[in-house]
């Protein structure tokens, strides 16, 4: 498989910061209040859940990690790079190294679930059509989407949509995946199954995962390395 392409500047930067933790929040004002700073380091292979109520600040963790919004203060480093400082086009290339499941699912409504899964693979790599097809078929099988792969998102139920969005998030085998409220509306078993599949890399290793949740779903407790309670924009305690 061909790795996602990047600009020479980005490639050089990534080489410089090789070995850095996948995700670091340093002194970040999640709620825009300078007296409430958030710190968190997610190491390689760690599965960290940030638990918080509405307006606790967990809503922006995913967007900050993906560089979709800049931090009001402090820095967010992804694989050692301050993501908010990357140019728009470097950011686009860099994001292909990350997986993201936005709140809801973010699936494209005019594509089938299979085409949604295929989109990042088709776009970000130089795979031949047959290779892309084989890769997507594998993902569809892994996430148990075969029977419903031809459906549009609006025709599928919430659990199927979430699994398709998760398959899309890991389609390029990223080393870091960010999941926003991924278990809302799912049964405990479905939540466990989803997290188990998302946290495994293609070579059988574990990938770093940050997920946000309103509570620590008991069924996923065994898969989570750390749970951080976020209150008023501050990481309060290890909630596991």
């Amino acid at each position, binding site marked *: 498989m061909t790795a996602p392409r990047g600009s020479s500047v980005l490639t050089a930067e990534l080489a410089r910061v090789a070995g850095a933790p996948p995700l670091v929040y340093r002194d970040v004002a999640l709620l825009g209040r300078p007296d409430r700073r958030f710190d968190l380091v997610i190491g390689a292979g760690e599965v960290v859940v940030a638990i918080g109520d509405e307006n606790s600040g967990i809503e922006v963790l995913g967007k900050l990690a993906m560089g*979709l919004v800049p931090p009001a203060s402090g820095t967010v480093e992804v694989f050692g790079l301050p993501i908010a400082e990357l140019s728009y*086009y470097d950011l686009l290339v860099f994001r*292909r190294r990350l997986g*993201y499941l936005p709140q809801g699912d973010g699936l*494209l409504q005019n594509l089938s679930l299979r085409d949604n899964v295929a989109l990042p693979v088709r*776009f970000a790599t130089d795979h031949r059509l047959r290779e892309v097809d084989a890769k997507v078929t594998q993902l569809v099988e892994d996430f148990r989407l075969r029977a419903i792969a031809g459906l549009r998102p609006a025709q599928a139920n919430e659990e199927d949509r979430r699994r398709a969005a998760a398959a899309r998030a890991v389609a390029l085998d990223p080393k870091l995946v960010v999941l926003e409220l991924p278990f809302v509306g799912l049964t405990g078993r479905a939540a466990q199954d989803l997290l188990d599949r998302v946290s495994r890399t293609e070579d059988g290793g574990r990938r770093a995962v940050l997920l946000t949740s309103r509570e620590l779903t008991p069924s996923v407790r065994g898969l989570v390395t750390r749970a951080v309670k976020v209150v008023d924009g501050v990481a309060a305690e290890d909630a596991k």
Partner: protein
Amino acid sequence: MVGGLARFVLRAVRAAARLTRAGRWVMLRVLINQIRFTALQAIALVGFLAAILAFLVISQSIRQLGRFGAIDNLGTIMVVAVIRELGPLLTALIVVSRSGTAIAAEMATNRVMGEVTALEAMGIDPYIYLVLPRMLGAIVSVATLMVVFDAVALTSGFVAAATSGMSLNRYTGIVLKTLSAGDVWLTLAKGIFFGAAVALFCSYHGLAVKAGPTEIPQAVTRGVVATIVAIFVMSAVFVVIAS
């Protein structure tokens, strides 16, 4: 709005310049779909309206011109009124009403449903996936539909002339006397500019939606109105340039 539109065009041009091989393949799939919807599915409607319009114009013209013995001016009416002016205008208006509305509504929905953000999060430039294929698709479609319009209008014009007793040879002679290579280039130029206007204004207003679903119909209205105004202004500019 002009500043925003200029930035929008600049982003689209930058996106086109950064298009990779894989990106071109993904764009091509969207482009083919866009042409199928905008051109292929509109051929029957464009053909039907072209036939009716040319039939009406030529029938009325023959009747009126015949009174003054000026039947040789039929070619001027056919070429100047139908082929040069009404054909491109009507074709563009059909595309705006069918595809312009769809483009604006789809883009606005993409924005409201968080799909644009999802594309950016996947490392996909929304201008490459959403805007460029629609721009190219609309240009190709409008230019193609204008050719279809002209072909059907010329044929229908003959039917109208024949019902008034004019022979094919005479009709062809009258029309060809007025028709020039410049008309072909003008049709092509109008196809490119009108098509670009449809995609540009409708995409711009669609993607400008911020608040929520209630803004979608407003975005569609803004996109369509802006496109219609732009098409009429461009028509006037083309007349000035061509004269």
